[in-house]
């Protein structure tokens, strides 16, 4: 299988005077259309790793290769474009834009990419909103819906540009177990339907076991890497 994402020798060191190394020489290949879980203790470096994978953060050493493109020497704007077109983010705190409605939030990555929205894009947004069961509230301001709804809106937003990689950091962090289950079923469905690659951080082992592959980070190193065969 092809690799959609490759990490080669990633180090991350914080601080100028007092240096703290958070990631140590990480090598990791993620296969196309796979569903991966990343687990690890708090402070082990999961979010740091994910931000580096998503080009939001730069590694101190090593290369991030996305879809065959080495991102090390890209400019900020080229990185932004790559991010916009190939990566969908689902952050722990949803991060919807409070000035915009649910529908407008979902369309935002599309607007960033194309400068405007057309009928086709709106139809796709509505389809995704329907998929995450938000049709009733699609014209609400994003602050006027519940936390779980906000999270599902963030999922729909991550999918609008049909990205090949979806990075999710504790996407169900503060949801009850039933809603968490529902959200994961949705992610898997999307994984099946759109063949997008998922990398999901979680601290919940039971949740992690829903993935095809479980990668455990301990003190900035990959300690276990298990593939499950379904």
């Amino acid at each position: 299988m092809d690799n959609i994402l490759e990490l080669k020798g990633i180090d991350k060191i914080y601080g100028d005077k007092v240096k703290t190394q958070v990631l140590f020489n990480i090598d990791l290949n993620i296969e196309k259309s796979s569903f991966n879980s990343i687990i690890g203790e708090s402070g082990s470096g999961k979010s740091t790793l994910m931000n580096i994978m998503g080009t939001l953060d730069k590694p101190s050493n090593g290369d991030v290769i996305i879809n065959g493109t080495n991102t090390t020497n890209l400019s900020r704007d080229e990185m932004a474009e790559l991010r916009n077109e190939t990566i969908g983010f689902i952050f722990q705190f949803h991060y919807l834009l409070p000035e915009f409605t649910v529908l407008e939030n979902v369309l935002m990555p599309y607007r960033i990419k194309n400068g405007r929205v057309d009928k086709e894009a709106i139809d796709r947004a509505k389809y995704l909103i329907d998929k995450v069961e938000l049709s009733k509230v699609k014209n609400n301001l994003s602050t006027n819906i519940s936390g779980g709804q906000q999270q599902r809106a963030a999922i729909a937003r991550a999918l609008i540009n049909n990205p090949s990689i979806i990075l999710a950091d504790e996407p169900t962090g503060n949801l009850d177990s039933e809603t968490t289950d529902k959200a994961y079923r949705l992610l898997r469905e999307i994984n099946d339907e759109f063949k997008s690659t998922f990398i999901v951080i979680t601290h919940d082992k039971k949740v992690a076991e829903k993935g095809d592959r479980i990668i455990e980070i301990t003190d900035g190193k990959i300690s276990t890497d298990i593939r499950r065969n379904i």
Partner: protein
Amino acid sequence: MKLAWGIALRFLKSSKGQTILIVLGITIGVSVQIFIGSLIDGLQVSLVDKTIGNSSQITIVSSEREQYFEVDEELLNSLNEDEELTAVSKSLDSSAFLTLDDETYPVLFRGMEFKDANKIYDFDDKLTGGKIPSSNGEVMLGKDLVENLELKIGDTFELITPEGSLEEIKLVGEYDLKVKAINESWVLSTIKTSEDVFDKEGQITAIETQVKDIFAADETAVRIEKGLSDNLETENWKELNEELLSGLTGQSASSYLIQVFVLLAVLLGIASVLAISVVQKSRQIGILKAMGIKNRDASLIFLFQGLVLGIIGSILGASLGIGLNLVFSNFVTNPDGTSLIPFYLDYKFVGISILIAILASTLSSLIPAIKSSKLDPIEVIKNG
């Protein structure tokens, strides 16, 4: 570009309180600026008009000891055709003495063609009794002189010329030019009478003119002087009224100073509110950047906000300022009902004020715009 516009407008709409505050600030600033500027301009225009509105603004006189010179029809024609001159009137003047009951009074005898002179002095309006002299031997005197001498319209009296001859003249009119020194000394007649009295046929002592742009009178005078023969030169009101001018200049300078400080205060206001807003919106900018918005667009969001605020605020401000001026000129009046300061509007000044305000508010959004473009999304993502 379109995206940045959309987001900018939405940001402005969703923080209405802040938007209204900034617009209000610009509105008040621009209106005060336009009000004060127009007020002082109006004041100056009316002051200048009162001072020199009814007098010669550029005068062509002899440059030699001999004050008389030949009438040059060609010169008069070219002056009459000069676009910049609104009035051209020749005069034949001489000092003389008026005698009455064995007393003599020094006067300035002025012969002019009233058809032309009216464009400068507006005698039709200044006449307080009798009529304007039209035939030989007729004169009109100023109100103050008539009172001093206790004369009546229709009286005759005698004049002693510098050559010593005695001439009989008849009082047919009384004027009031609102300047006592003139009212006490000018004896006005037709040019023909003046020629006869002083025996100076075909000669004059001055060509008086008024100009369109009074503040360019000195430049116009220089231009006219170039076309004059050697025995002639010009005088203009500016060189004769230096005190008034320096007063006006001082007034303008203080007006500019006030305007600059008002503008500065407005600018600082906008800049600080927008700077706060970029901090408030840093979360949103971070999210947009994580989703891939380019730095250029991220900064345009704030520049556009400054632009929109500037346009709305300065147009509202200009309207308010003009309105204030209208109110002021209509309701703040002299006892006789005329406005204390006439309504005066310089469209160029208003236009420039609006442009400067728009430019300034856009410029003051530059700092937040740069901040926005520098913002690193990772800061927002990590710190929630």
